[in-house]
């Protein structure tokens, strides 16, 4: 793809330990993500894939190496963190909507308080995003009145209200009933056509095959293998990836 342009996100020799127990969770990670790229990150639980994407919006800090997001090196500089967070939207496994605010209030919170947008304009923009995730009729309900799939679509709309350059998805369908996974994936697939950079931790291999430009496979804090989905699923290079794929695709 755009291999000669500067990458939008770059991990250079990043190492991370958990402060609480000293566990070495990311080990020598070197990765580049181009603008507009759709990447699926998979791997067994505890492999560091969530931690990896949580570093990108500074929810986690790292100890060694450098992580650059859209020209900003993430480190101790708090201003840099603020700038990056405005450009990066995130969707969590547990939705993390604010239960004491209505759907619409969840959406306009950041535009009005962080981007200082007039309330009226923020509402208009929020309604556009709600339309996009097909949830307009629930704008004035509270999150817990909605189904899991609806809540996750609201969470996606909330992240989109910041008009981010990058969207991070941390296992967005793992907490959903089987019948609701599709409605969320449909919304995500629709997003891929907008040219946004998307990084998604997921085990939805069908989604990976359909939309990903690249699949990254991680284990024990390392990037084991990365390849276009077709290549990764048809002929994984490492024994670890072969073993992993045989387990998740085997039934």
């Amino acid at each position, binding site marked *: 793809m755009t291999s000669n342009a500067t990458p939008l996100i770059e991990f250079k020799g990043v190492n991370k330990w958990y402060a609480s127990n000293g566990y070495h969770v990311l080990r020598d990670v070197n990765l580049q993500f181009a603008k507009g790229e759709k990447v699926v990150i998979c791997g067994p639980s505890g492999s560091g894939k969530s931690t990896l994407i949580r570093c990108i919006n500074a929810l986690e800090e790292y100890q060694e190496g450098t992580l650059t997001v859209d020209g900003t090196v993430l480190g101790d500089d708090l201003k840099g963190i603020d700038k990056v967070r*405005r450009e990066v939207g995130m969707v969590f496994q547990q939705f*993390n909507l604010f239960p004491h605010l209505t759907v619409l209030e969840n959406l306009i919170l950041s535009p009005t308080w962080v981007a200082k947008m007039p309330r009226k304009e923020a509402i208009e923009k929020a309604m556009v995003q709600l339309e996009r995730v097909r949830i307009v009729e629930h704008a004035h309900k509270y999150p817990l009145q909605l189904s899991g799939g609806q809540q996750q679509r609201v969470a996606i709309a909330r992240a989109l209200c910041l008009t981010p350059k990058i969207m991070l998805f941390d296992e967005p369908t793992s907490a959903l009933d089987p019948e609701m996974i599709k409605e969320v994936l449909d919304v995500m697939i629709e997003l891929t056509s907008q040219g946004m950079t998307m990084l998604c931790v997921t085990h939805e291999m069908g989604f990976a095959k359909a939309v990903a430009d690249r699949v990254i496979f991680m284990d024990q804090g390392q990037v084991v293998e990365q390849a276009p989905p077709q290549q990764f699923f048809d002929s994984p290079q490492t024994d670890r990836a072969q073993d992993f794929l045989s387990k998740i695709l085997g039934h």
Partner: protein
Amino acid sequence: MNTVFKSIDARPMPGRSSGPLAWLRANLFSTIGNSLLSVFLLALVVWAFVASMDWALLNAVFNANLQACNDVRGAGACWGVISEKGRLIVMGRYPETEHWRPVIATALMLGVVVLSCMPRFWNKALPAIWIVMLAIYFVLMKGGFFGLTAVDTDQWGGFPLTVMLTVISMTLAFPLAIFVALGRRSNMPAIRTLCTLYVELIRGVPLITVLFMASFMLPLFMPEGVKIDVLLRVVVGITLFSAAYMAEVVRGGLQALPKGQTEAAATLGLSYWQVQRMIVLPQALATVVPSIMNTFIGLFKDTSLVTIVSLYELTGALGLALNSDADWRPFKIEAYLFITFIYFAFCFAMSRYSLWIEDRTAVSKVR
């Protein structure tokens, strides 16, 4: 293969008896043993009620007639003690000719408190209303302006003092408790240690000790000529004391909040204080409403301990009114019942309000 799924309509649960008779049979008279027990307890209740009514109403003396009161001693209540001493109990040592001032000031203060309890008044004007109210309150009570006779703060007493100590201490302790609770969870070690130290130190001593220290020890450490008003010292003492307890209650609420909430708010670019104000505190405080009200009610009654430093609030004023008067002293029980009623009315109102607020915050938790 072509069967169409048909859902079964919901029916009410069978065997659910209704009506008072069915309830009685099920709950009080289900077996012979239960029936006997019910009848026995019912008789006991009736007997206790009749006996207490005999004492409180039938044989009671209602006017301030000392002779009549002494005649019915043991058999009937002497409510006359209230008409005789009520004014002293309720107003304490405040000069009698000026009693209209604490009445108006306290009514004003309680009015603003009631106003502040209603969510529809939670707006930017409220702090201004409080400042105006406090200004009027202190001018009225303290006097010395506008032709009002000056009344020293150690003369304030009775119910107005109880109300003032409670309202001011609550209003100061609540925000302080929130900051201390947030401080104990701060990333900054110095702030965390300071807040922990404060809570553990204050919780480690009885309120009486705090009041005693504030009143007698503090002036010893003050430079010559600097005198802090006794009332101010007591308010600070009560505030610091209850804030320590409340901080732990608030911290419990903070801990109950899933970490994902602050993470999500952070990814939206909100600052630390925005996250606390708009996401964390509304949810954390809503979960601890019952415990906060518990602390408030405790604080309301703990104000009676200021007698230790010679301030005579409601309970203290009762002692003041009766201990020095041998004629009326035997009728302390009636006087205590009188202030019990006052305390109860306020505590009950507070606890009903807490239930109502709980209900209101539950709106966002509907499933």
